[in-house]
């Protein structure tokens, strides 16, 4: 199918070719006496060559045939007739025709190749420009801009649709049909031609943006017509360039975010640790000096001795409170870096009891360990903190000499620890809210504390993807149960003993 203007152009070319043949005949006629017929043949061949070069294959073939006819009629005796006296002119005609046709064919092919080379060169240059623009792009908008600049040349339009973190197309929220096609293109990892799917007039191609790690979106190209493999290859080259640019931007953003996170994490931990150091140092001095005073006044007046002991205990309580506050700040300041490893509950249970020996002096603690309990993945320092807080609460809120029980067991997919006492239990209806910050059983009781203990426990257990809950036991007393997911503990090869 050729356009109207192209048909016109072709007609003109044919007319022009005829005209040139006629003109050369008229010019050569007066020279008939002077020139050999062989040289006149040369003139005609020159014309055929020039026509092939400038006007294309069709006019060239026509002029080759016309040249033979004109030569026969106007130059070969008898003139003005197609009859030929000498039979050897037939050879001249056939050679002339063969050379003319071959020239027409070769020249036309050559100029077509030249045109294609120019085209290719242009495409390459434009692809290079696109690559250059994409390499400099620092935002998705700039990528879109570079892309639209490129397609403006090619007579089609293109749009980028990128996937967000959830694997959805935010730019296509309205167009459900197209979203389906886009997902199909991503799934197939290849070009989808929508004209195969619907019979709308225009042609839309959807190409996935494939980068080495992930498909990050699709390119939607709207073409007036589908011209063939050349365009398809071109589009695929464009898609590859865009995919690389998108991938680069993605990692640039990721790096920036990571740097930002690391910086803020460093800042946070340095603030917390200097706060901890600056507040703890005077408390250490206070505890130490009060303790020294208590020791030296042991034999002296009761009031001074008791005051020294009271100062020491209050300072210790303050230090404990400070630890809880700092711990809470650390747990709530964002990501908690858990130092998880496969460990045994019994290690932290034992060390927590030992750490709280003075607090637990008035409470017998019984521990029930399950035989062959599996390894569980947790941060031992933090879990010890949880157990300390629970034991401390148990000691604080139950009568002296009443026992405290710790039990480890497996329940479903979880490894659990129960810490139970024989005190008054939790206030009815408050077992949930107790795990909130600054929540206490009785809001202004004389028992020391600000209600951070259980909140810290719950923050730590949540960071471990576990659960913690409080219940009042039927036989009286409070029971806190913490459960951690069992996961897949590493295999421990038994030791092979030599006999």
């Amino acid at each position, binding site marked *: 199918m050729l356009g109207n203007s192209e048909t016109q152009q072709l007609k003109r070319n044919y007319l022009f070719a005829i005209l040139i043949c006629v003109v050369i005949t008229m010019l050569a006629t007066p020279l008939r006496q002077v020139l050999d017929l062989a040289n006149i043949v040369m003139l005609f061949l020159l014309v055929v060559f020039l026509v092939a070069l400038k006007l294309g294959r069709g006019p060239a073939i026509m002029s080759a045939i016309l040249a033979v006819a004109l030569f026969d009629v106007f130059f070969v005796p008898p003139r003005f007739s197609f009859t030929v006296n000498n039979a050897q002119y037939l050879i001249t005609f056939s050679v002339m025709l063969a050379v003319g046709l071959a020239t027409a064919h070769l020249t036309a092919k050559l100029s077509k190749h030249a045109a294609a080379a120019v085209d290719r060169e242009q495409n390459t240059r434009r692809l290079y420009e696109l690559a250059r623009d994409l390499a400099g792009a620092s935002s998705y908008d700039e990528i879109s801009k570079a892309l639209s600049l490129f397609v403006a040349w090619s007579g089609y339009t293109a749009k980028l649709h990128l996937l967000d973190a959830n694997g959805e197309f935010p730019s296509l929220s309205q167009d459900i049909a197209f979203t389906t096609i886009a997902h199909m293109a991503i799934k197939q990892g290849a070009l989808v031609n929508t004209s195969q799917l619907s019979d709308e007039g225009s042609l839309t191609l959807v190409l996935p943006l494939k980068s080495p790690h992930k498909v990050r979106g699709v390119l939607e190209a709207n073409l007036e017509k589908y011209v063939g493999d050349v365009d398809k290859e071109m589009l695929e080259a464009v898609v590859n360039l865009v995919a690389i640019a998108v991938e680069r931007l993605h990692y640039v953003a990721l790096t920036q975010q990571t740097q930002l996170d690391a910086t803020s994490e460093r800042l946070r931990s340095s603030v917390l*640790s200097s706060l901890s150091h600056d507040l703890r140092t005077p408390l250490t001095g*206070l505890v130490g000096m009060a303790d020294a005073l208590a020791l030296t006044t042991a034999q002296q007046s009761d009031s001074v001795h008791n005051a020294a002991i009271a100062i020491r205990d209050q300072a210790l309580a303050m230090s404990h409170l400070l630890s809880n506050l700092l711990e809470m700040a650390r747990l709530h300041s964002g990501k908690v870096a858990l130092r998880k490893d496969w460990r045994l509950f019994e290690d932290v249970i034992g060390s927590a009891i030992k750490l709280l020996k003075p607090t637990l002096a008035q409470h017998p603690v019984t521990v029930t360990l399950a035989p062959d309990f599996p390894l569980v993945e947790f941060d031992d320092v933090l879990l010890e903190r949880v157990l300390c807080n629970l034991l401390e609460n148990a000691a604080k809120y139950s009568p002296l000499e009443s026992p405290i029980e710790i039990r480890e067991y497996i329940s479903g997919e979880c490894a659990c620890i129960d810490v139970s006492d024989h005190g008054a239990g939790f206030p009815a209806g408050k077992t949930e809210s107790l795990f909130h910050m600054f929540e206490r059983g009785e809001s202004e009781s004389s028992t020391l504390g600000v209600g951070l203990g259980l909140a810290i426990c719950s923050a730590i257990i949540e960071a471990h993807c576990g659960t913690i809950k409080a219940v009042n036991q039927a036989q009286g007393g409070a029971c806190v149960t913490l459960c951690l997911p069992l996961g897949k503990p590493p295999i421990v090869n038994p030791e092979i003993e030599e006999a």
Partner: protein
Amino acid sequence: MNSVGNVILIEDDQQIRRFVKSALEGEGWKVFEAESGERGLIEARSRKPDLLVVDLGLPDMDGVEVVTEFRKWTTIPVLILSARIEEQEKILALDAGADDYLTKPFGVGELLARVRAVTRRRLQNTMASPKMCFADVEVDFIRRSVTRNGVAIHLTPIEYRLLSVLLSNIGKIMSHRRLMHEVWGPNNTESAHYLRIYMSHLRQKLEHDPAQPAHLLTETGIGYRFEL
């Protein structure tokens, strides 16, 4: 009072220095104070100390560096003072050669108990005994046998090795890495959970109440310690 020895106290806070000094002097120590790591190392070289007490958070250099520097030329006991949240620092200091640590805040009783423990250990280490008893357990290093109330207890080779490493470092905190290294050798490929499992086996076999051990103690986040 006769001096029991020289102690170098490196701590930047004056109040802490004051009470640690008076507590140690009460025990008969001669105390030399230093408020920076640099100063402390100079004191240590000139005073022929028998004990070093170092705060981990010093203004001029890291306490771990002080320990490393100090360990280049002497084996005398080193006691670390540190805050609770510095678990990694403690491990580094212990691996660098520190003998024990005290968590701030601490009382005089605690301080003196630790000082006695680290200095006593030094004496014990110099006279290796072929037998050792704790609670109702007796370990015979020559026959490589362990008995409890006179009844022989079977220990696997690894359990025995672990126990003897702990026993030869009485009272000293052994980091996980150090224990792994000594029990499984320098090229060990096992992970620390093996250590935990074998420790649990030892407690089952030797402790009166394995859940509340009296001798084979866990130092959470750091390692284990044997205490008489």
